């Protein structure tokens, strides 16, 4: 069975500090990977997606970057946090066929508070 693990569960960081969030998928080779951001009580905004190692597509510009160093790992990072980065970050994966309505499988998320 496939599992998706996000770390850390929660972070409290200062404005201007760096950030690194991680996501690992086990039991599925070559998945499509996604990062979503959810403001408190808000909708999900897709940030990035990746269909293969080393290749990441940006969907919106929020002074964040993403990388896929391994087939099963997706990293979200920034060198300088802003207050507006606070929220709930969700990693997700899907099958890589890309030709049908693929289900997104979400991790449990990371709660980020920027002070």
């Amino acid at each position, binding site marked *: 069975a496939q599992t998706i693990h996000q770390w850390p569960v929660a972070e409290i960081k200062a404005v201007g500090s760096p950030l690194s969030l991680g996501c690992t998928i086990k039991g599925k080779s070559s998945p499509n990977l996604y990062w979503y951001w959810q403001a408190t009580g808000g909708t999900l905004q897709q940030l990035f997606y990746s269909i293969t190692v080393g290749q990441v597509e940006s969907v919106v510009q929020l002074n964040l970057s993403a990388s896929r160093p391994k087939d099963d790992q997706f990293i979200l990072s920034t060198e300088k946090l802003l207050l507006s980065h606070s929220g709930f970050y969700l990693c997700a994966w899907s099958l890589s066929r890309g030709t049908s309505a693929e289900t*997104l499988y979400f991790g449990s998320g990371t*709660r980020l508070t920027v002070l």
Partner: protein
Amino acid sequence: AQSVTQPDARVTVSEGASLQLRCKYSYSATPYLFWYVQYPRQGLQLLLKYYSGDPVVQGVNSFEAEFSKSNSSFHLQKASVHWSDSAVYFCALSPHSNTNKVVFGTGTRLQVLP
């Protein structure tokens, strides 16, 4: 550009009552459509999805949704809700041209009163 509108931010119903959560979409063709549920402090889980064929789609936990091309809608329904259905429900759309881009609505918070 595609978009999803969920006009009801909050819905409150009594346990055992029927439920309809509304979803309207904007897209030039027939998209892929989804309903996801989010329980407190958790990620989202798929309830059901539509991509073609029968406009009525059955999902988990007795949820169903009906696709209407003429109304650009994909409303979620359940005949009898349980208190454990209390959660936030998101409607989402994915264009056929790029299934890697999934657009979510703003969500509807459902409260089921015992």
